[in-house]
């Protein structure tokens, strides 16, 4: 029973990583850049929902929607101002800029909301007793897992079936050819940032609900772990991000439970290194073979 409870906590933690990793992987797949500010969008999502609930007294669901809207706009604006001018610059310049944006967001949050951690009450409270009270599952866990599955199915359908989603795949593969088809590449990249940032906002609310705390650096570590999850699953691959996120969460929960809380992060990253040694493209990463 103990094992089951660790597993559930691992899956729900992994679901949060997966939602963040989906944003990372979509932006990477289409813009071919690592948006290191992605984790900080999560934190902004947390603060916006927090303020909406406590200072404005809005219902939780409205607060979450507000966080999604603010983060979506923020993501698109960041792309326009910071990344778009660097479209043809070397990737190192874009990477450094993304790190700069990350610090900018963290320090802006520090200025606005101060360094002290806030107590963030879960968006849904309470828990469910199973097996005659032997197993307790919080509603936040259930909500997180459900959100992750819905997002995963929604995104997969969107990318494979819709015209816009297919255009995104076309841009991800070959931007010049996509332009020759009449696809507006800049608009497609903006749309990708919008989707990624909206997912980050949702992840922010769920993450803060889990940790029940919030501070300006809240997004950093989960951001890095989700990035790891995306690489683990095969960066650029949507099912890969999902799988990578879940596995990472489970490994972390199990390491904490059975090995050592202090070593948990080291173990997570050690597993990543081993996976990349064996499968350099990640678990579901594609190595495209081109026939001539």
């Amino acid at each position: 029973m103990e094992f089951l409870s660790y597993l559930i906590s691992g899956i729900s933690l992994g679901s949060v990583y997966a939602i963040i990793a989906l944003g990372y992987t979509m932006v990477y797949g289409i813009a071919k850049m690592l948006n290191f500010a992605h984790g900080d969008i999560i934190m902004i999502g947390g603060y916006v929902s927090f303020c909406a609930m406590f200072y404005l007294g809005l219902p939780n669901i409205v607060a979450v929607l507000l966080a999604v809207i603010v983060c979506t706009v923020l993501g698109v604006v960041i792309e326009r101002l910071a990344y778009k001018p660097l479209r043809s610059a070397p990737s190192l310049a874009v990477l450094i800029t993304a790190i700069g944006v990350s610090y900018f967001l963290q320090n802006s949050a520090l200025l606005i909301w101060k360094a002290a951690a806030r107590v963030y009450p879960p968006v849904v409270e309470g828990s469910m007793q199973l097996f005659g009270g032997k197993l307790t599952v919080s509603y936040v866990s259930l909500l997180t897992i459900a959100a992750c599955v819905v997002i995963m199915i929604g995104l997969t359908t969107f990318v494979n079936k819709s015209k816009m989603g297919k255009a995104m795949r076309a841009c991800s593969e070959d931007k010049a050819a996509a332009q020759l088809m009449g696809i507006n590449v800049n608009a497609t990249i903006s749309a990708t940032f919008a989707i990624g940032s909206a997912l980050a906002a949702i992840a922010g609310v769920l993450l803060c609900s889990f940790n029940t705390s919030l501070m300006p650096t809240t997004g950093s570590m989960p951001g890095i772990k989700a990035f790891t999850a995306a690489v683990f699953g095969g960066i650029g691959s949507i099912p890969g991000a999902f799988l990578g996120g879940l596995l990472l969460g489970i490994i972390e929960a199990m390491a904490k439970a059975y090995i050592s809380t202090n070593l948990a992060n080291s173990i997570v990253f050690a597993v990543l290194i081993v996976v990349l040694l064996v499968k350099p493209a990640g678990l579901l990463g594609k190595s495209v073979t081109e026939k001539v």
Partner: protein
Amino acid sequence: MGQILQVNDLHVYYGSIHAVKGVSFEVNEGEVVTLIGANGAGKSTVLNTVSGLLHPKHGSVVFEGKDLKGVPAHKIVEHGLAQVPEGRHVFLQMTVEDNLEMGAYTQPNSTIEAGIADVYERFPRLKERRKQIAGTLSGGEQQMLAMGRALMSKPKLLMLDEPSMGLAPILVEQIFDIIRELHAAGTTILLVEQNAQAALSVADRAYVLETGRITLSGTGKELMASDAVRKAYLGG
């Protein structure tokens, strides 16, 4: 038979390299016009400038009387220009049918199905492979897919960049047969080729491009008979 494309005194640079140095030519409705020349003569640069992927420093591209200056590449298709890029550039990870659908990106959804049916009729091979990932097609099939994809936008002018590149002789012949068929069906074609022999045999008119300049022009037959062209491009 009006003029459909007019290129005037085009100058294109890659950084400080002056790749196209004052090229002018025109294409009339219903014609097959070819630009031939050696590797590096600037043929693809001219096509990519017409498509809006590159921007000229001087000169203009006029399509159906409209100057395309400042029109972004993704808007050019809507004007009725489609390019089959050099090296085919089909979307390798997408299915044949999804590739065709991308070709019709600017078309209303209701016409896509009929467009795909037309392409399958012209290229039955693609119909057999409709659910296959484009990366698994042979070179010749990928070229057909790239051409079918471009036709999906119902172009008034189809631009083909080195359609025979890297293909076995029998496939080269097939591709040129398709060009003849398209021509017979009334499609206006601008063809860029290194394979001068094949290109001149299908072309109504031709231009020879050398290091960024047009050095010769005439009908396909005239150039085929010209000593200079025979020496330089037709192996004697």
